[in-house]
C-alpha cells in the first residue's frame, strides 16, 4: 500500500461519513413527510428522490458538470456567493454524493415511518406529547432499524460511488481521488498488483458491512 492509497482511503471515509450525516439530517424530515402525505406532489417528490437509483451515474455526472460549470445556473450562483465553481472540489463531490445516495436514506426511513402507523402517535397525543416530543421520543426509537439501515446503506453506497466522481472529480489527490477512481487509474495503468489491494479491500469491506447489517437486524427480531 502506498501513500496514495491511504490518502484515497481517508478521503473516501471522510466523504462517506459527511454524506451520511448530511443525508440523515435532510432525509429524515423528507422521509417523514413522504410517509405521512399522500398527494400528487408527494408522489412527484417521491419519484424525484428515487431517480438516482435508476439513472446511470453518467447522467447525473453530466448534468452536474453542466449545472455547476461557469455557464450553469448553480455555477453562477456559487460564484456569486464567492464559493467559486464546485466541480473538482471536495464540496462539489459531497453535494453530488448526497444527491446520488439520497434514495438509500429516504427509502428505508420512509418504510420504517410508515410501519409505525397512526396508533402510537395518537396515544402519544392523548398523553399530551407535543408533535416534536412525539417525533423524538416515539417515532425515532421505533424507527431505529430503519435509521440503521439508512445510515449503513448510504455510507456503503457512497464508498462505492464511481461514475459521478469520474465525471466531476478531476482526479485530484486528497480532494476528489477516492478509492474507486484510484482503482480505475491503477487498472488503466496496468498496475494490477496495487489494484488488487484496493479491489480486494473493497470486497471485504462490502461483505463485512452487509453481514453486520443482517446481524444487527436479526438481533433485534429475537
Amino acid at each position, binding site marked *: 500500500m502506498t501513500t496514495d492509497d491511504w490518502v484515497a482511503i481517508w478521503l473516501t471515509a471522510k466523504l462517506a461519513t459527511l454524506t451520511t450525516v448530511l443525508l440523515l439530517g435532510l432525509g429524515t424530515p423528507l422521509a417523514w413527510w413522504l410517509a405521512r402525505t399522500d398527494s400528487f406532489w408527494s408522489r412527484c417528490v417521491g419519484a424525484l428522490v428515487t431517480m438516482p437509483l435508476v439513472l446511470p451515474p453518467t447522467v447525473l455526472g453530466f448534468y452536474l458538470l453542466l449545472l455547476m460549470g461557469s*455557464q*450553469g445556473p448553480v*455555477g453562477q450562483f456559487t460564484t456569486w456567493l464567492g464559493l467559486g*465553481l464546485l466541480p473538482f472540489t471536495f464540496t462539489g463531490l459531497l453535494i453530488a454524493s448526497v444527491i446520488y445516495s439520497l434514495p438509500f436514506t429516504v427509502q428505508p426511513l420512509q418504510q420504517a415511518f410508515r410501519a409505525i402507523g397512526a396508533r402510537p402517535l395518537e396515544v402519544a397525543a392523548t398523553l399530551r406529547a407535543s408533535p416534536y416530543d412525539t417525533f423524538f421520543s416515539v417515532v425515532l426509537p421505533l424507527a431505529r432499524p430503519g435509521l440503521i439501515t439508512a445510515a449503513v446503506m448510504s455510507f456503503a453506497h457512497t464508498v462505492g460511488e464511481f461514475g459521478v466522481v469520474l*465525471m466531476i472529480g*478531476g482526479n485530484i489527490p486528497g480532494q476528489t481521488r477516492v478509492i474507486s477512481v484510484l482503482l480505475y487509474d491503477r487498472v*488503466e*495503468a*496496468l498496475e494490477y498488483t496495487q489494484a488488487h489491494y484496493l479491489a480486494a479491500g473493497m470486497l471485504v469491506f462490502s461483505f463485512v458491512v452487509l453481514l453486520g447489517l443482517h446481524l444487527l437486524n436479526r438481533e433485534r427480531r429475537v
Partner: protein
Amino acid sequence: MKNLTLLAMPLLMTLAPNVHAAEVQLAVAANFAVPMQKIVAAFEQSTGHKVLLSSGATGKFYAQISQGAPFEVLLAADDETPRRLVQDGQAVAASQFTYAQGRLALWSAKQGVVDNAGAVLKTASFKHLAIANPKVAPYGVAATEAMIAMGVYSSMLPKLVQGESIAQAYQFVSTGNAELGFVALSQVYEHGRMRSGSGWVVPAQLHTPIKQDAVLLVRGRDNPAASALLGYLKTDAARAVMASYGYVH
C-alpha cells in the same frame, strides 16, 4: 486484356461492396475520434465495409485487448502501445505505422484568455488547468513535458485537474469548469483555425513528438475490411481530413 480490366473496374467497384462487404471493429484514441468518424464515413462509402468505432483512452484499450476484447484495428495515441501489443503477440508486427502526428494545444472556451505564446500559464488568473491523466494518456505526458520545458510545472501542480482521457480534459474546459487546459489540437481546430474560444498551438519542440501509430490486431488478421481500413489511412483523402484537424505527417 488490360483495357478490359480497366473497363470492368467501375463495374467491379460497384459490385465489390455487396460481394465482399465485411465488418471491422475499430478502437480509436479519443483525440482522433472526430476526424476518424469523417474518414470512416468516406471509407464505408467507397468500400462498402462497415466500421464499428469505439473511442477511448489508449491505455484502456491496451488492457482490454490484452484481456481478449474483440477489436481488430487499433489507432493509438502513441507508438508505445502498438509496439507493446506486437511484443505481447496481440498485434501483427509488419502492420504498424505512424498514421498521424498529434499536436498539443493550450485552449480556453472563452475568447481572449489564451494568448499566442502561452504566457497565461505564468499568471495567476485561473484556478484549474485540465490535462489528460499522464499515467495513461500520451497527450497528458506531452502536456507535462511542455509545462516542464516552460518552467511552470511546479506552479501548475496545485491547479491540475485530470481527465481520464483527452476527451474528458476537453470536456472539463468546454463546460467552463476548468478555465483552460491542454487538449489535442484536433479537438479545437478545424479548417486551419480554432473553432471557438482562444488557443495556442504548443510548439512541437516543447514535447516529444506525439507519434500516433496504427496496428492490425491478431483478431483482424484475416478480415479484409481491417487491412483495407489501414490502407485507407494512407490515402490522400484520409490525410486531407487529418490535416484539416491540425495533424501533421
